[in-house]
């Protein structure tokens, strides 16, 4: 074998890079997120649980577009209760804790939605009301 001095270290770096998740995680078990169920005890969402798990981001995106672009501010009715279409107006009425609901999965899967560039969590909204 020729040029051992450069090829062997190069190969070692390559193998370490490819297998880096093994070393970086250190074989510790996964900690799948457990999003908090609505503290108010609501059982029914606007859509079935399975649909929401896969598609909530598209639903929210559709809602945003229909509200902001088409002015379709229709009410959403779930189990007799009506909500105004929107993340803060509807979703967060039940799922009131962003940190314990939204963030658990988003942090685990490193999803960084830009909802919160504009929206406020109920907690933040309350504190804003205090200051004004």
């Amino acid at each position: 074998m020729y040029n051992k001095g450069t090829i062997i270290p190069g190969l070692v770096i390559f193998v370490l890079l490819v297998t880096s998740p093994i070393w970086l995680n250190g074989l510790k078990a996964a900690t799948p997120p457990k999003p908090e169920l609505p503290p108010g005890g609501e059982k029914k969402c606007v859509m079935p649980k399975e649909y929401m798990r896969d598609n909530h981001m598209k639903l929210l995106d559709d809602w945003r577009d229909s509200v902001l672009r088409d002015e379709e501010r229709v009410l959403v009715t779930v189990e007799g209760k009506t909500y105004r279409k929107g993340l803060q107006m509807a979703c967060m009425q039940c799922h009131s804790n962003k940190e314990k609901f939204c963030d658990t999965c988003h942090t685990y899967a490193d999803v960084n939605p830009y909802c919160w560039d504009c929206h406020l969590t109920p907690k933040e909204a309350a504190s804003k009301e205090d200051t004004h």
Partner: protein
Amino acid sequence: MKYAFSFLAVIALILIAGLGSQIPGMQYLFGVVLPYLAIMLFVGGFVYRIMDWAKSPVPFSIPTTCGQGVSLDFIKQDKLECPTKTSEVMARMFLEIFFFRSLFRNTKSELHDGPKITYESSKWLWLFSLIFHYSFLLIVLRHMRFFLEPVPFVLSALEGIDSMLQIGQPAMYLTDAFLLLGLMFLYGRRLLNRHVKYISLNNDYFPLVLIFSIALTGILMRYFLRTDIDIINIKNLAYGLVTFSPVIGAKIGAIFYIHLFLVCVLLAYFPFSKLMHMGGVFMSPTRNMANNSRSKRHINPWNDPEIKPHSYAGYEDEFREFMVDAGIPVEKELTAAKDEA
């Protein structure tokens, strides 16, 4: 029909994964067994190929040069095109690996009436290769979020840059579009450029179609066919794989298994194909040697150490009588040589 075959092969692979993963119990094969096999083939095959190259002797000093070599003091050396020092070779290799410098010199030749041939600079290959390779790199890095817990900040930042246009939810990635664009150019080049089409083989078309299908299934999974695509289940599976405790938990949609299977095929195919240019670019003697054969002797590793150097003086000593007999001029005459002895 060469290019049609690559499509057929990939369609067959998609059918295998799409139908196979829907058979109860087969999720373990497609989600756990095949990924492990593929990554072992990838790493093992990669190391094997590199070691194979490392064992191959380079009989001659064969760097490609296209600039002024070291000469007299007042003649300026082209240090990148004709490197003589290790540092210059490293600079040339760096530009080659990170910026594909040799593709920058790509030319297009055309035959005109006359007949007359013309050459023209053609930077498209360089541009689209750069787009394709860097998009692919970013996409691979982005996927590391499924394998790491917690996800390093660098990866989140990369993802943020990639989705900076904030189109739709889940946000569209720029690299997804760029990768497809690059692939379409690289494939189109092989179809439309007669010179390249003539030398293109199945093993040129197949990887392009395979990578295109991987990108396409990924895009379909992320933006369109979201049924049973819960990212938490996918991360659980991916994370389980790298911590050697894989679990097939909740149901994951067929499009995910197709995507994963195609990636497995790519990984397994990689070391035994032209895609090994990833490692080969470092091993190419025409690139990684210094053009210093005048100041430093390049010893051919094939040389038999038993065969000693035979100078002309020694040769003449051995054959002087025969040479004189045959009338071949000699440097030392027979009598002079005898006097010395």
